[in-house]
């Protein structure tokens, strides 16, 4: 079959070549034949003869006539294409083109004539070519090859897709051949280049489409479903919107709706001028463009708006005193009462009440208003609008300004005490301090002083006429995100706190819808609601996102919203919420906004379990940790709480993983601290993730704030301090051989036992020599280790002697039996002995200082002379005995005066007269006998004989 086909076309090709190149006039040219052949073009054409038709109108849209001939073999087609030049109509000649089949019903003879004429007029060579074609056809029909049938059919299928070839009535541009229409008129067909066709073919092959069984394509059906759904959602949303509107309208006066209408009208006007919008689009942010300009346009909760406005109105007497002194107040009172009713059923907890009464200067009790809430709720906008509404000139300070104390004070005073003189409309100022939670504490204190100081000044000494600072006579509105910043603590107490709840998403979405309409961005309410949800109802973020989308394309679909990475604010959550999230298994949250596409494709499962899928949990915790920072605190919190978590872990494998992770994180921290290498800090965020997967539960026990480590650290520090104070004042010899580790591990525990010998509760005088020795031993040890007993008053009012430093605390552990204590009396006695001994030693040391070169004889007898201990005492103890009160040795008397010995006195000979005089009297004194008498108890009283003349 192939062979035969090729054979056939070889003939044809030859013929065409001849036509093109040599322009041979065909031997016979017979219109009737062609007419006959053209008759096959009718839809009812015989199958067997259809090859002619195809040849004549190659590429024409004849294919419908051969529904049966769908069989085709691609290779075959390709070969065929390669070996041929094709007939094509030129796309540039559209006006002239005539479809043979359409014309088919018109008068054939007329046509033929017309075309004949045309050809005659135009060119002879056309007729030649025409003849050539006719020649081919004839030859083919004569051959009557049935094999060519299928081949032609397949080729024609191809042609159908290309949908190009046309038959022209006039001569087309480029190469062409002419032929007769089926009614005998002359038509022309263009010759196409082979290459073009080839590319056409390949492209066709690529997007060949499978056959569909459905009468309507799936894509269309989908669109329909989506459409339906959108309509439904829209209806619902509109209903919600309408009901809200109605509510609003009933609450507000008429002007609300008017305002909105006006605004929308003005916006619509803007729409009309498209050029304007485009230029404006480039210039301004939507956030500014669509910011509310009136009180009625505000999106924030009505009750809050009102209470702020009401508070501001309370200032009216002070600020605009002349205008409306009391009626205003009364009016305010009235409205207040009404409002209270409203507030009662609204969520009252969000804000503190507006204190109604004015102070003696007719200012409201709360001097400032503090608006707080997460970003993007319109706090700043509210403040501005309300201030303007109440007739103030707004002065704003925000984080971009310098907030050092001096600058802050200057600004504060200029804003509150000055007033614009120049300008058409000099209004009083209202200061709005934006982002006050970021201000430094001293700056906030300035503000506090301004509020407080005036209070005190005026109340106490009004008559004095203070030079510094007048009353605060202008309202101040502060805006912050976090009202619990420590710096704001005091401010909070004297402020009207208005806590912003989240904007209702329906409210926000409808507003967005308006904006979107104006901006000609295609977005359905569904997508907008989803956007609101993603951004946590942050107006600013929503608008910015929309504007961003508008820049690139004209449509915002639900899909876009879900895939966009918007609304992921770098918001820091409290550590508590982080800990809670770690230990809580998230509940499956139904995704409210599922796009229809997903529903159809069966993806809704994945979307619905979105937030409880492991990867989502992983990402969530990781993200939170990274945002929270403070890895150390996070780790502490987890460490203190994870053992309380309910987790099934019978083999303690999870526990081991957890503790290993803690170890790892700790090592990481140490590495970071030591090498200052913060590149590894990122890994510490994975610790909470691990704990989340190990210990998350649906109803976890309450997370406790981690105190343990802090307390332990404090105790540890206390112990260290005790030990260092003990060590630092030890005698060098003992200190040399001890350190804090020794002390705690080996020394202190037995030492305390050693320091508690059994002492009889009697006077020391009555002690036996052995007991005295024991006592002195204790005293010496305690002095060597820098310990003493110290009287303290116990909580129950009793006096006790405690060790100082209290090393007992260092070695005492809870739950163990108390060591035996000395009696109060014994301790007292030891304490006394210690101080006595210390005194003696100090005296001793001073003696040595006074006489640096002490003759050996003077020191040697010292221990022996005063040695009270009996002969049983070993030699080594003797030097430890007191040795301070030996007459030979004492060079200083009790009062610290230098007492000169005779040997010294002889040296002082060449003194001045006065000195001699003094010396004389002194000598007399010194020559007398001196007694040192130890009184019972605790006084080193000295008694000696002094005559009156000595004093004179």
């Amino acid at each position, binding site marked *: 079959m192939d062979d035969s086909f090729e054979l056939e076309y070889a003939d044809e090709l030859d013929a065409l070549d001849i036509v093109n190149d040599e322009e041979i006039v065909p031997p016979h040219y017979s219109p009737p034949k062609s007419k006959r052949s053209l008759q096959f073009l009718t839809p009812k054409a015989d199958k067997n003869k259809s090859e002619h038709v195809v040849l004549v109108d190659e590429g024409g849209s004849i294919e419908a006539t051969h529904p049966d001939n769908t069989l085709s073999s691609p290779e075959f087609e390709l070969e065929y294409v390669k070996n041929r030049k094709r007939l094509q109509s030129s796309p540039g000649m559209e006006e002239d083109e005539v479809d043979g089949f359409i014309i088919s019903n018109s008068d054939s003879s007329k046509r033929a004539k017309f075309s004949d004429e045309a050809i005659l007029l135009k060119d002879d060579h056309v007729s030649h070519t025409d003849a050539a074609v006719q020649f081919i056809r004839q030859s083919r029909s004569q051959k009557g090859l049935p094999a060519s049938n299928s081949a032609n059919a397949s080729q024609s299928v191809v042609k159908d897709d290309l949908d190009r070839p046309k038959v022209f009535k006039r001569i087309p541009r480029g190469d062409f051949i002419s032929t007769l229409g089926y009614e005998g008129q002359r038509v022309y067909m263009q010759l196409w280049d082979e290459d073009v066709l080839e590319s056409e073919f390949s492209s066709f092959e690529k997007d060949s489409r499978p056959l569909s069984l459905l009468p309507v394509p799936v894509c269309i059906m989908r669109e329909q479903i989506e459409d339906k759904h959108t309509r439904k959602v829209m209806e619902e949303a509109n209903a919600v919107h309408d009901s809200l509107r109605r509510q609003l309208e009933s609450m507000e006066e008429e002007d609300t709706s008017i305002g909105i209408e006006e605004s929308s009208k003005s916006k619509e006007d803007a729409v009309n001028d498209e050029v304007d919008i485009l230029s404006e689009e480039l210039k301004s942010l939507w956030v500014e463009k669509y910011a509310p300009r009136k009180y009625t346009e505000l999106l924030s909760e009505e009750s809050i708006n009102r209470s702020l406005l009401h508070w501001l109105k309370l200032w009216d007497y002070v600020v605009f005193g002349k205008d409306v002194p009391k009626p205003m107040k009364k009016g305010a009172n009235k409205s207040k009462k009404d409002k209270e009713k409203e507030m009662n059923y609204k969520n009252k907890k969000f804000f503190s009440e507006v204190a109604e009464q004015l102070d003696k200067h007719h200012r409201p009790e709360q001097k400032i208003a503090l608006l707080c809430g997460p970003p993007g709720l319109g706090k700043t906008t509210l403040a501005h609008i309300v201030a303007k509404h109440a007739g103030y000139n707004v002065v704003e300070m925000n984080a971009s300004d310098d907030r050092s104390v001096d600058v802050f004070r200057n600004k504060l005073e200029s804003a509150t005490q000055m007033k614009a003189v120049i300008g058409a409309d000099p209004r009083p100022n209202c200061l709005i301090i934006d982002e006050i939670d970021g201000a430094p504490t001293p700056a906030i204190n300035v503000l506090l002083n301004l509020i407080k100081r005036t209070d005190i000044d005026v109340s106490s000494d009004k008559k004095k006429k203070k030079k510094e600072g007048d009353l605060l006579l202008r309202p101040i509105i502060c805006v912050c995100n976090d009202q619990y910043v420590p710096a704001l603590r005091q401010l909070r107490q004297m402020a009207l706190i208005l806590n912003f709840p989240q904007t209702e998403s329906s409210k926000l979405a409808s507003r967005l819808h308006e904006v979107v309409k104006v901006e000609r961005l295609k977005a359905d309410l569904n997508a907008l609601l989803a956007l609101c949800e993603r951004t946590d109802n942050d107006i600013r973020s929503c608008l910015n996102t929309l504007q961003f989308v508008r820049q690139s394309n004209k449509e915002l679909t639900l899909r876009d919203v879900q895939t966009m990475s918007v609304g992921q604010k770098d918001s820091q959550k409290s550590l508590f919420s982080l800990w809670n999230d770690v230990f809580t298994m998230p509940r499956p949250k139904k995704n409210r906004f599922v796009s229809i596409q997903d529903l159809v494709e069966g993806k809704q499962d994945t979307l619905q379990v979105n937030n409880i899928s492991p990867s989502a949990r992983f990402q969530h915790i990781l993200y939170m940790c990274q945002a929270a920072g403070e890895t150390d605190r996070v780790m502490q919190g987890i460490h203190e709480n994870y053992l309380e978590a309910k987790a099934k872990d019978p083999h303690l494998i999870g526990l081991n993983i957890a503790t290993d992770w803690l*170890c790892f994180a700790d*090592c990481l921290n140490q590495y970071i601290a030591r090498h200052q290498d913060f590149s590894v800090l990122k890994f510490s965020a994975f610790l909470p993730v691990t704990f989340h997967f190990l210990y998350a539960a649906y109803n976890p026990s309450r997370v406790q704030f981690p105190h343990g480590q802090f307390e332990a650290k404090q105790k540890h520090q206390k112990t260290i301090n005790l030990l260092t104070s003990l060590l630092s004042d030890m005698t060098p*010899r003992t200190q040399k051989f001890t350190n804090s580790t020794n002390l705690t591990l080996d020394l202190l525990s037995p030492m305390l036992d050693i320091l508690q010998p059994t002492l009889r509760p009697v006077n020391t005088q009555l002690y036996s020599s052995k007991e005295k020795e024991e006592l002195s031993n204790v005293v010496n040890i305690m002095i*060597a280790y820098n310990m003493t007993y110290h009287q303290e008053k116990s909580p129950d009012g009793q006096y006790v002697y405690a060790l100082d430093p209290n090393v007992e605390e260092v*070695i005492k552990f809870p*739950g163990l039996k108390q060591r035996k204590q000395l009696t109060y009396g014994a301790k007292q006695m030891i304490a006394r002995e210690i101080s006595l001994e210390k005194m003696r030693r100090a005296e001793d040391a001073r003696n040595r200082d006074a006489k640096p070169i002490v003759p050996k004889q003077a020191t040697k007898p010292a221990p022996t002379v005063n040695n009270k201990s009996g002969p049983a005492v070993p030699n080594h103890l003797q030097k430890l005995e007191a040795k301070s009160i030996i007459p030979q040795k004492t060079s200083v008397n009790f009062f610290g005066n230098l007492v000169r010995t005779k040997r010294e006195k002889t040296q002082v000979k060449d003194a001045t007269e006065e000195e001699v005089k003094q010396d004389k009297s002194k000598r007399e004194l010194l020559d007398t006998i001196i007694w040192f008498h130890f009184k019972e108890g605790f006084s080193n009283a000295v008694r000696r004989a002094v005559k009156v003349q000595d004093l004179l």
Partner: protein
Amino acid sequence: MSLWVDKYRPTTLGKLDYHKEQAAHLRKLVEGGDFPHLLVYGPSGAGKKTRIMCTLRELYGPGVEKLRIEQSQFTTPSNKKLEISTISSNYHIEVNPSDVGHNDRVVIQELIKNVAQVNQLDTSTQKNFKVVVLTEVDRLSKEAQHALRRTMEKYMATCRLILCCNSTSKVIPAIRSRCLGLRVAAPSVDEICQILTTVCKKEGLTLPREMAEKVAEKSGRNLRRALLMCEACRVQQYPFNPERDVSEPDWEIYLRETATLIAQQQSPKRLLEVRGRLYELLTHCIPPDVIMKGLLKELLQVCDGQMKAEVVHNAAYYEHRLQQGQKAIYHLEAFVAKFMAIYKRFLEEGIADIF
């Protein structure tokens, strides 16, 4: 100075009670005149510092015993003031650089420079170098140790170093190779017994042999502790009664109780309880490695053969991490948790075997 520990501390090399051969070596070293840097190491209570003092006395005579405490001030490159107390005589200075934490490098550099740059005035009668004694060298940071190695060579002419530590494993090899290592091993139980007896004799007391042995055993071959225990016994009751228990330090009892708690029950709740006790120990300044060792020692008693190896291996692993980490509690807790898991598995297997 009247604890027995202090009272009967030998002051010359000749009076040392054990490792006499080593003492003789030291004396020869001093006599040879070419005194090297020393690295004295050994367990606590073995007499390292005593030996150092004896050596110093051998070098300089009784003058070294006139000690004074001085506060030295240093300024870090970041202008932070550091204060550290030193014990010094005319001939030597002793300092514990690890008192200032991670700034020890500054102390090492400045202090040694100060000491070494001043020559001894009278070199004819005395040694021509001073001695710097650094204690707890194993707690020095790596930076400080690296700072030390050059200084040691540079000021060799005027200064010798005596380093004192418990273990050489944390001293960098560069320093170990520059010093003459001197290991002071803990005295054997017999030696301790002997010392206790002589001390008691000097005190005019009679110490029964059994009592001495008992105290020596309890002390864990720590002579300081042995002497203190003995003295405490003496204060509590004399004449000695060998039947009576020798009182132990509270922390040891507490640690033992903790170990018992661990062995009793294995659960997160118990771990929480144990954590509280570990905190208690740590806040009483018990070093974490001592806690780890003590726990291991107690816990091994409830383990059987195969488990012992596993437990010891894990203890070593967590002790290593403890050294690398910041907060000991995590690592101690991790070890306890690990032991609980191992022990619980062991118990369950045991029960399974029964059925």
